[in-house]
């Protein structure tokens, strides 16, 4: 099972085992990772699962769809490596993925 490390804005790291096919958001929620709200449960409707993806993984996490792009446009403190974690699907290729959560999702 691919391991994903979530780093909060203060630098605390939590590593969880994710399942192929679930989203990086779902793996976080099931493991009570703080810093990801995901109010809509992964429908790409709320923009509260914003993460910063380790740049080494940027080409592995897949392309952003239009909907995600325009949702992120309104998130706070967006960077080049910003993604909505509900739109990243876990696969073996993502083993070792590191994502950082922003200070606030609102």
């Amino acid at each position, binding site marked *: 099972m691919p391991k994903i490390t979530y780093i909060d804005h203060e630098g605390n790291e939590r590593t969880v085992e994710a399942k192929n096919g*679930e989203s990086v958001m779902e793996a976080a929620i*099931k493991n009570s990772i703080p810093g990801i709200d995901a109010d809509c*449960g992964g429908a790409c*409707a709320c923009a509260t699962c914003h993460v910063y993806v380790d740049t080494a993984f940027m080409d592995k996490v897949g392309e952003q769809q239009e909907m995600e792009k325009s949702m992120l446009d309104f998130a706070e403190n967006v960077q080049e490596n910003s993604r909505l974690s509900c739109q990243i699907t876990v696969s073996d290729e993502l083993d070792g993925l590191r994502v950082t959560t922003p200070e606030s999702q609102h």
Partner: protein
Amino acid sequence: MDLSDASQIVLIGGGQAAAQAVQSLRMGGYTGKLTLVGDEPALPYQRPPLSKAYMKGEFAEERLFFKPAAWYEDNGVELILSTRATKIDRATQIVELEHGATLTYDALILCTGSRPRPLPVKGADLGNVFDLRGLADVDRIQPNMVTGRRMVIIGAGYIGLEAAAVARQMGLEVTVLEMADRVLARVTSPTMSAFYEKEHRAHGVTILTGARLDHLEGENGKVTAAVLADGTKLPADLVLAGIGILPNIELARDAGLTIDNGIATDRDARTSDPRIFAAGDCASRPLVHYGHTGRLESVHNAIEQGKLAAAAILGKPRPPEDCPWFWSDQYDLKLQIAGLNQGHDEIVVRGNPDELKFAVFYLRNGTLIAVDAVNSPPEFLASKKLIMTGSKVAPDMLKDTSISMKDIAAAAATA
């Protein structure tokens, strides 16, 4: 009342609000006894996919659950499932469960949710006549979702229309009956209603508005047709009723709590009994951005009130109260709604509905109070903030798609 020394917290109900409250209590540092009583057999799960991806078979059941079973064990949450709470004795702070067990509480959170409004017609008890509320409902409906079967949906609200979209995509012949003169009449403007009617018709759904169901006919205990008041007979292999929900307030009412459409709560989700809280569909609450109280049927509301109740019990600062928001997925249309449009005196349309990307803004005295945004996240997200700040927005700017929502929001903020 200070409940921060509570050591026994009981939740009744196992939906979104309860799942959130449990999570917020444990993450907030509560270490005492925590018991969740739910009348469904399943672990707490999310309902929105039931009328969308899950119904279509594109979303594994396991993904519906907020947390795996192990989480509840690891976090010391006792789950009492498939069990109804039958009585609250406020004097002794005891909840009675069916089969005779009792639970003592220092604080109690009612997350009793809602139930489908029953179809008030003859034949409603026939086989293959369904409601859509829980996992078990979808599991009963799904074997009937077979290409070519005829499905009649009673009620053109969000549940009915989402189910219609799924059924069409699965190849069923779908007819939607609506008593009002347009779909979504209770919740949105004629502009949006016209758009959704057109889209559903384009996908092959028959929509009959102003249609009053008289009764359902059946053979050998199974439904065969829906008969309208004007005598029209619509053959049906299955019928789905989506005519609204009723809040489950009986337990609270019988315990003498104040009821106001739902279980009346204050801004902290506290009921008229300071040890008892209510969250989600069953509760009515102050709508701080609108200056009145109301009952919201939404994920946002369930999450927020779950957090409010947990914070109040733990004696923590009140979490932010967001503007109400909702979403609906039908075909490839993502509708995002912010705010409540009741009482609007002006409607502004931005974009072109024919391009399947547009927004309808609702204003009152020049202040933005709500938006329905179709495939338009910027309109939704910008409006959410503007509604929360009670901003006045110039209709001419909203109409002008050459001005970005960011610029509109910035202009409104400085106006």
